[in-house]
């Protein structure tokens, strides 16, 4: 099946995109940002029209290994380019945290075909459990993080139960209800801080070093976000590996099967109950990890960050990027975090722009920026 496309096209393409992203992040004038977006869109349209886009994507697909290394290097360098601009690193870190949540959501929305609007709630469960354990009991981050993940996983299982009897639109409605229930519960309980949220969440500590503290090395000052950013990148790498392995495993095959045809899946001995609950549990564990990372990053957690809006936003990211395509999910998440952040002056129109982007995407490219590839991984030889 291997085609021998040279990696050159993919390399040039990725470099151009990377340069564009870096320039975009570095600019802080609103009108220049808008101009860049227009220029970028025009560039993409030209690339598609001239066939360069397809050639580049083909080249990337054929050289996955090299391209993964390249993307890794690009990502690692990115924070270093903004040593003097901690704000950009802050946004980038946030985007990476959301990437972990959308990788989880992709299991449900992309792989298993269950459009779940409650991922924001699972994100909140992870964040709140981790934050409460930290603030009230003083547990270190390395205990509160797994606790948050576990709690989110259990919540995912519990919320998965009422959705088992439902499908498609009805399932989405159930998840919306679940999102609102958890939001209102957290809002109204006393021990969660209610509408005031939880302040003063501590930063993680590794080998006695607090992550997120400024480090001064001679004349160079490394901003605090930088260290947190690299920690989040490490977690994102783990999340990516986990997501990739799940996708290629028997779980992933079963999820794709129930997405394509539930009756047929039952006919071949798949337990829909088990597969769906697994999708919910695994997906929520990702969200829980993202939530915990978020709470300790910002140092403050409130219900605003686990509302239905967040769930909606996460679904938008997955659909925009490309369902069931991990790279696509990452691209979608980065776009929807970074662009609105750059257009802060239009804050009031942010949701409007999400709506617009979604409508345009669904009309012109319903399969997302990077559509999912047919599964090529075979389970042959499984003992």
């Amino acid at each position, binding site marked *: 099946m291997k085609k021998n496309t040279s990696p050159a096209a993919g390399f040039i393409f990725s470099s151009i995109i990377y340069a564009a992203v870096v320039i975009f992040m570095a600019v802080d004038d609103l009108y220049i940002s808008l101009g860049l977006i227009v220029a970028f869109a025009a560039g993409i349209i030209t690339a598609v029209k001239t066939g360069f886009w397809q050639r580049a994507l083909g080249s990337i697909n054929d050289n996955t290994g090299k391209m993964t290394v390249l993307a890794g290097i690009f990502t690692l360098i990115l924070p270093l380019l903004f040593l003097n601009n901690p704000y950009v690193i802050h946004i980038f870190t946030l985007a990476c945290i959301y990437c972990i949540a959308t990788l989880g959501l992709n299991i449900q929305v992309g792989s298993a075909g269950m459009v779940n609007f409650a991922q924001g709630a699972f994100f909140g469960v992870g964040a709140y459990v981790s934050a409460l354990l930290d603030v009230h009991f003083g547990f270190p981050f390395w205990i509160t993080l797994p606790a948050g993940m576990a709690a989110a996983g259990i919540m995912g299982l519990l919320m998965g139960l009422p959705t088992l009897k439902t499908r498609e639109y009805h399932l989405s409605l159930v998840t919306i209800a679940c999102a609102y229930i958890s939001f209102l519960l957290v809002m109204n309980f006393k021990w969660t801080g209610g509408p005031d949220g939880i302040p003063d969440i501590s930063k993680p500590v590794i080998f006695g070093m607090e992550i997120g503290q400024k480090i001064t090395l001679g004349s160079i000052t490394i901003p605090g976000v930088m260290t947190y950013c690299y920690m989040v990148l490490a977690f994102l790498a783990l999340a990516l590996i986990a997501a990739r392995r799940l996708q290629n495993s028997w779980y992933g095959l079963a999820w794709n*099967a129930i997405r394509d045809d539930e009756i047929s899946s039952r006919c071949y*001995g798949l337990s829909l109950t088990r597969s769906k609950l697994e999708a919910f549990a695994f997906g929520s564990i990702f969200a829980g990890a993202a939530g915990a990372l978020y709470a300790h990053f910002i140092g403050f957690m409130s219900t605003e960050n686990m509302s239905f809006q967040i769930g909606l936003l996460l679904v938008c990211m997955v659909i925009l990027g490309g369902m069931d395509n991990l790279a696509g999910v990452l691209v979608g998440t980065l776009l929807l975090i970074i662009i609105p952040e750059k257009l802060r002056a239009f804050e009031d129109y942010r949701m409007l722009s999400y709506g617009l982007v979604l409508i345009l995407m669904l009309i012109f490219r319903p399969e997302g920026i990077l559509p999912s590839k047919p599964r090529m991984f075979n389970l042959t030889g499984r003992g």
Partner: protein
Amino acid sequence: MLLQLNSVSTSYGKIKMLDKVCLSVDTGEVVCLLGSNGAGKSTTIKTILGMVKSNNGQILFDGQDIGKMKTYEVIRKGISVAPEGRRLFPRMTVEQNLEIGLAANQEDSAELKDRVYQLFPVLKDRVNQAAGTLSGGEQAMVAISRALMQKPKLLILDEPSFGLAPLLVEAFYNTIIEISRQGTTILLSEQNAGKALEVSDRGYVLQKGAIYASGTKQELMENDLVRKCYLG
């Protein structure tokens, strides 16, 4: 008896679909289930699989009562089915479609795949093609192959020849005979009564949800009503 239905009744809400159906399949047999549209063939199969629950009666498979089991548990007992309308996973490759068939049978797949490719050599060239892009005949082959991957004790085929050209139907039934010869018991649901009876040892005729006639191939072929209604 491998499979036995003792006066099984099923209803969708208030509508009675099956009325005291008694049916049995012995190891090694090919048994066909005949009847026109809406006679209850598919409902019978769904009831056996536990997709529809029977109101009363008993369903025994291999001596065990499977009437209350969930579909995937029934499948794991050794029944596999090529469902009506094939229902392939269109976006997956042929090979992955086959691997889904392993859900109930966690054995090494290489040998099972070889067997399937021997039965349907065409599929070997189509391994990495998305199942949705295959022709109708090839899709029908994948549907049966997928069911065979489970090494079933009983293979249920629900209208396997639906939508196939007459010439293909002929070849297809030859393959069904071959599968049976290799030792798989088959329950075959068909509207094409002539063709189905040809390959079967015994048959049942369903009408309005009840068994209307039953007997060996010979008996059914000679039955006046069966001939008038189904054989033309």
